């Protein structure tokens, strides 16, 4: 366990954040030095009883000085805001085909599910130089996945997906931990964050215990939970066809249109009456308490694989 696990900047984004941090340090250091220098010289030069010129300042000078440093402070802060905000906006748009890893945080442990089916507890392996997107949810309280080496953290909320996307560049073993107070063992909720070169990552995934990948597990669940009873084209029940639904615009019965992202799919499974598709009646039962977090991750992976295969074959949705 060395300090490097915390402080090395393991991604381009992290390096850019370090640059901003050191810029802010120098700017703040200069202002602090200016303040201390002024205070010390005034305190010594104008101490009580010192024989030194103490005339009154002309009122106009006082006004200009006042306006001057107000404006200077305003523009300096605006510049810092623009500099920091632009770094943030650059990191905003995650690439489309990022590697999707599902994270489930539970009171005082982490569970990671790779698309290839690999499952990990408290350790996360990611390939270097590839865009990775973590879709995270919590099973109880608010947690926070904190990756110090990437200078990133994101709160994890129950019944909602929050995302963390990055592109690690330096392979190595770093630290990951929880950063939002979540109860008794909040401080023991840490683990390893391992960045492997793409080849090593492929070898590592292959070496994982043979469990087929999420999509196939999702397909099995799609049948066992009874979804196939309504949602296959041949079924007698009038239910929306799910092939190719992921990422598509869906028109709802109350006139709104939403994009079918993970949150929409998840809500439609747990709260079916929330966004009823136009032209369908809200007859779908809620699967809350039936489908666990892990099942939901698999079902959504399966639905995404449907849209991937549908777009490949160009079959009409």
């Amino acid at each position, binding site marked *: 366990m060395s300090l490097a696990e915390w402080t090395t900047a393991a991604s381009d984004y992290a390096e850019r954040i370090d640059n901003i941090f050191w810029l802010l340090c120098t700017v703040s250091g200069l202002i602090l030095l200016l303040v201390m220098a002024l205070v010390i010289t005034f305190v010594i030069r*104008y101490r009580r009883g010192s024989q030194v010129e103490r005339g009154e300042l002309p009122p106009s000078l006082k006004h200009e000085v006042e306006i001057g440093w107000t404006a200077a402070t305003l523009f300096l802060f605006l510049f810092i805001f623009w500099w920091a905000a632009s770094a943030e*906006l650059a990191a905003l748009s995650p690439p489309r085909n990022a590697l999707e890893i599902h994270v489930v945080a539970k009171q005082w442990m982490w569970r990671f599910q790779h698309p290839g089916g690999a499952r990990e507890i408290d350790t996360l392996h990611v390939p270097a130089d590839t865009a990775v997107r973590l879709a995270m949810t919590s099973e109880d309280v608010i947690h926070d996945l*904190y990756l110090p080496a990437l200078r990133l953290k994101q709160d994890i909320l129950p019944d909602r997906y929050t995302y963390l996307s990055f592109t690690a560049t330096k392979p190595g073993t770093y630290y990951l931990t929880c950063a939002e107070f979540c109860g008794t063992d909040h401080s023991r909720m840490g683990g390893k964050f391992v960045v492997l070169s793409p080849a090593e990552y492929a070898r590592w995934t292959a070496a994982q215990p043979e469990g087929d990948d999420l999509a196939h597990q999702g397909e099995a669940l799609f049948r066992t939970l009874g979804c196939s009873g309504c949602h296959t084209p041949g079924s007698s029940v009038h239910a929306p066809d799910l092939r190719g639904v992921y990422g598509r615009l869906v028109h709802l019965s109350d006139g709104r249109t939403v994009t079918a992202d993970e949150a929409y799919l998840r809500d439609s499974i747990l709260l079916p009456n929330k966004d009823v598709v136009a032209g369908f009646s809200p007859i779908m039962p809620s699967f809350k308490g039936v489908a666990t977090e892990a099942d939901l991750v698999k079902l959504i992976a399966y639905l995404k694989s449907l849209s991937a295969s549908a777009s490949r074959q160009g079959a009409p949705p």
Partner: protein
Amino acid sequence: MTEVATDMTLPFAPVEETGAASYLDEGHTIMSWLATTDHKRIAILYAVSITIFFFIGGAAIALVRLELIEPHGWFLTSDAYNRLFTLHGIIMVWFFLVPSIPATMGNFLLPLMIGARDVAFPRLNLLSWYLYVIGAAFTVYVVIAGGVDTGWTFYPPLSSNYANGQVVAAAAGVFVVGFSSIATGVNFIVTTHMLRAPGMTWFRLPLFCWSMYTVSLVMVLATPVLAMSLLLIVAERAFGLPVFDAAHGGDPVLFQHIFWFYSHPAVYIMILPAMGVVSEIFACFARRQVFGYAFMVYALLAIAVIGFMVWGHHMFVAGQSQLANLVFSFLSFMVAVPSAIKVFNWIATMYRGQIGFEAPMLYALGFLGLFTIGGLTGLFLASVPIDVATTDSYFVVAHFHTIMVGGTVSAFMAGIHYWWPKVTGRLYHEFFAQFAAITMFLGFNVTFLPQFVMGWQGMPRRYHTYPEVFQVWHVISSLGAGILVVAYTLPLIYLGWSLFRGERASDNPWHATGLEWQTPSPPPKENFHHVPVIDAEPYMYHETGHPREPGEPTPVREQGE
């Protein structure tokens, strides 16, 4: 305390101790204290209560700092650790910092400084102290009954469904003490508007009165939202109503919005009075008018208003949308501008002054340095990417402690020492006070500078056990906490000593120009024997217009004759 250099003689000789009955002689029974409606006595009741709670909160964090010397702890369980830092947070925020300057110095000095006989609603003032006592009783019950382990922020679903401590009792305690500060706020606003002495126009008010007025605005408008957020937590925990329950479509982030809508203005409730105290002390001990009085007033008002629009910077990683992050980040940079202006104006006040180094001035200089560091690190946390990297780490802990301990507690100590002769009629021993001030400044830096360093390295906050990598910083920080314990108990000793053995104080030992120094110390029950008439600007420490030769006495125009 050595009398201020005699060459600063004032044309009107202070009224000798005529033995007139002071407010302390009005009654010596318990009931004369517990049923008083005299704003000066209520100020002392508050001073005693918040000192007790300052040391309870201090004891809690002393145990935590001891525990953190070892990476895996040595005498506390994780649960005990969590309950101790939660207790430290709740007590320090609501039972010491929020009432610290408004309820003690504000209560005592606001009527004196504006020439009034008492605050507008004396009985409401006493009710405010009793609400504080009831809230304190709830918190003492929480301590006895096992404490609460949610952090002082009470985030659901931890506080509503998963925490097993005394959340409802703690929320009730804070709910009640919230109404104590609303009562004080209402009182100060009406007093400042309607009970000013003839001639005391708004721009002749001392800056301390302006800070009391602006802090009252923030207290009155922010605290009810805290009351509602805690009430909703109790509704979910005690009555099972799914207020923030995500399973029913609720949203825990909504609680954070409502909670921080109060809790960021709360940090301005803590710092605005400190700015008022420090402005008075710089003017008096540099013997100069406050530089840019009007800008200082506008800065106070700007902080009070914009302070309500920046709460989102506590939630950059909480699941807020990117647009909201950028909006709150921009507004947070805007609210930093008035604070920077005030720092420059304090420095400019010292320019060409006659600077003395009595204890109040040492604390004020300490305030100036530490408030600058606190403000600048606030800029780091206002920019979204740096906040994403450092929020919930020790960098944030160091930032807000620099403002609260380095800023507000230093100013509180400065005010206690500056107005001690007026409140008690006694002079404290200057050397010990200066020693305590310097010890506190050193102790502060040794405690919190290491926390900035390990915060940027990634050490998360609220951790009972931590990776060994950070042990060196924790040990230094705990050492600094030890120095602070010494620095905080010293004033208890020499100020307590001065109460009985201290030299008798004249009416105006510091030769200050405020109205509170125109009346005997300790002042009589009705504050002024005759209603003062004001015809001069505040802080007439040096004659404007023609440059003054060094050593020439400071002619101050007659006041109150």
